[in-house]
């Protein structure tokens, strides 16, 4: 039995333990705590509350307590929201996930198509135009693109709702509900897709350019295959291979939420909640969320390594 996977899993667990301690200490040493910002309270009351919340204990003791509970599946109550941390995740994370999943999917599909076409027509006007557009998207802050689209598509043209996830007060269910959500998602998804498109398109384009120079592309053409088939079956499969590794890295991003997009579009996602909790030093929520992302990150790293082994027939045997 080879130990590759076992070894990786073991490392993963060690890293997660290390990470949890490090993260806990980081949060603990961030200036201020949950009580500090509430400057209406008298010093005595602050002391009382710290006692109630256990904030006056040494960091390691608090960490130990947190870890013990976490290992029992108890991630505690959010201090600010007064709800179990897991319930809060459930309330917010799926919204973020929806947005991220759809836009990631679109980003990949569009990046692949544009990448393939602009590699195929390298240095054509299409290629140049795409490149300019990509750089434009890369050199503008995201809030800016968001505002711009809201202004045009929502306020002026009124084609799409300016924000939120459903029409306020709507009781739509079933198909109607889905339609409503899709309409509301459109703008944020467009912005997120635009933002993610740039580097991925460049990546696919350069992979594709490399692949198109390979001998087997010439073979495919010599067989008399249609150009589309040559590009999308023979070339693309190879060009996508190195990108498979990226899939794993997308994992934490799918659940991480996006502060700015969520804020601009009033999207009820975890990104905003995290930011807000950070401002408040809502430790249970911060720890819960960060560890969740850390776990996803570690899994994602492992996944991307494994995926590569699965995807490339050449790697498998070595």
């Amino acid at each position: 039995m080879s130990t590759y996977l076992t070894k990786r899993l073991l490392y993963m667990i060690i890293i997660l333990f290390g990470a949890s301690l490090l993260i806990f200490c980081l949060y603990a040493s961030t200036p201020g705590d949950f009580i500090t910002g509430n400057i209406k309270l008298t010093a005595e009351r602050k002391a009382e509350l710290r006692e109630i919340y256990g904030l006056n204990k040494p960091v390691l003791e608090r960490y130990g307590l947190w870890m013990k509970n976490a290992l029992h599946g108890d991630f505690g109550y959010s201090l600010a929201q007064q709800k179990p941390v897991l319930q809060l995740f459930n309330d917010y994370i799926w919204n973020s996930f929806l947005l991220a999943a759809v836009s990631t999917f679109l980003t990949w599909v569009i990046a692949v198509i544009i990448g393939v076409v602009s590699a195929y027509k390298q240095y054509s006007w299409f290629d140049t135009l795409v490149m300019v557009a990509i750089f434009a998207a890369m050199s503008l802050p995201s809030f800016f693109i968001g505002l711009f689209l809201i202004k045009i598509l929502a306020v002026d043209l009124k084609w799409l709702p300016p924000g939120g996830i459903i029409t306020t007060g709507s009781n739509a269910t079933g198909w109607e509900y889905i339609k409503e959500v899709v309409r509301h998602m459109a703008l944020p998804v467009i912005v997120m897709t635009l933002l993610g498109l740039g580097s991925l398109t460049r990546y696919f384009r350069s992979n594709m350019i490399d692949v198109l120079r390979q001998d087997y592309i010439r073979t495919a053409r010599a067989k008399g295959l249609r150009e589309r088939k040559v590009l999308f079956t023979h070339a693309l499969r190879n060009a996508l291979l190195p990108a498979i590794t990226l899939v794993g890295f997308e994992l934490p991003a799918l659940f991480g939420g996006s502060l700015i997009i969520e804020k601009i579009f009033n999207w009820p996602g975890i990104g905003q909640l995290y930011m807000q909790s950070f401002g408040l030093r809502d430790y249970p929520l911060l720890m819960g969320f960060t560890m969740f992302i850390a776990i996803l990150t570690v899994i994602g790293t492992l996944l991307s390594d494994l995926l590569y082994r699965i995807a490339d027939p050449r790697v498998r045997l070595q």
Partner: protein
Amino acid sequence: GGNNANTDGNDAAKGNTGTTNTSTAQSTATNAPGAEVVPAGALSEPFTATDLSKLPATAQKRNDTIIVGLTDPSGAFTPYFQQSGYDGNVSSLLYASLVTVDEKGVPTPELAESWDISEDGLTYTFHLRKDLKFSDGSPLTADDVAFTWTIQYDKAYDGGSQLPTLNVKGGKAYKEGTAQSIEGIKVIDPQTISATLEVPNATALVTLGSNVLSKAYYGKDYKFGHLEYIKKLHEHPLGDGPYKLEKFIPGQEVRFVANENYFKGKPKTEHFIYKTTEGDVWQFLETGEVDYASFSATEENIEKLKGLGFVNIIPYTPSTYGYMQVNLKHEQVKDKLVRQAIVYGLDRQSIYVDAAQGAGSVANIPASPISWAYTEEGINPYKYDPEKAKQLLDEAGWKAGANGIREKDGKPLSIHYLGSKSKNTDIFIAVAKENFAAIGIDFQPEVFADFNSLVSKVEGGDYDLVSFSTSMLTDPSEGFMQFFNGEIKDYDNPKFIELYNKALATTDIEQRKVVYKELYQLFNDELPIIFTNYKKTVYAYNGRIGNLTVSPYIGLAGSLPEWTLK
């Protein structure tokens, strides 16, 4: 009291009871009332919609629903147990209070039809209306009030209520577990209840006269020292206010439906929704997604709102003021002359009025212009006067030194300033840097995006000046709160304490006014904090809504039951 991470001035119903901070970061101080010259274009009179046909179809279609934007509430809708003011906004519609305040801040009856205050000012007796009901139809009695007060003295109580600081007799004993009940709280009959304090406190009437929790509902599982069970009830509130909670969708909206058991009668509009919004709400007002929004009263904003044509606009002055806390331990600002020089030398008009496009005015006392205690009598306006500032600095012994920076005993006059990251702070720093350089002060600004970091820094004492603004002030005494909650410890002026206590010892407004004038004059001269500005806001709302007024102290909640949709 919620920890405050930059709540924005644009939020709808700011005027909730009890649960906001005394001080918020300066950054929130965009808007201020016009005590000074009102610049051209700013709104002094309400403005009525000119063309309702421009109202977006979305808003046109709504007939029994009003939508108002609100920063994401957390769902802790039980009064006294909230950590955020936004939850307070929600609960202010769900719960009525015993006593409320009018637009001047003067207490008026609500659930209590009257009250008595004993001669010594220590005992408050409330007389409840008859046949009061919670929204589920159960009766509301003095027992519920007693329970509400008692629970706030529980050992495990972690909310931000001010009630425990009132020192109700026997409260401490209860909290320590040595008494089974609170001695000072007496249920006289189902309609009458009294509370006795250990020291007089003029704010007690409003603090005691707040929301009432149903003992049958919230007290069912109550055991001393155990309050976790209440968390489970947060999202299922049982109140007695104009509206009932219909549905709470985290991060999206809070839906209300009219309460037929409301003691003033069922509200005129069946549905009300708080829609979660962040920051700028222009797009939602313009597309008719919300019916009501507040904006800082800049000329541009007002112009643009007028241009929309379908909104009514009312000017509004929040009951707050902005100030800079001074580190009185530090040599360079310990001297009153230096503080006065700083105020003279700072072009507050440019910063808070001109650069804010009229959405603010200059403050000189610790009270908002709309307070009943506000006065300008005998108040030095400290008009921008760099010459005067220089003269004062000379007088204080700070002499011009090398490269233009003043020195005393070989130490340069350097001011370390802390502010919260915001556009306004950026403007402040830009102007202040120039102003201070002109009078020979070296200005060292530092900004923080994170309120907690800022406060930690202040607590560490490493600063000379730090910008804050108060949250909503109901009683004038709250304008001095920072001197009592430990935030400012180094101002020990016996005269101040004497006057302050004197003002609290009586509940007679005219009497109090006189004392406060004296206090304001004292502060205006001594400048234990440096007053900066007032905000000025406008509210814009769907022209179809009738009977809408906004109280500086209780926000929409007061008039909401009366709102109609034309």
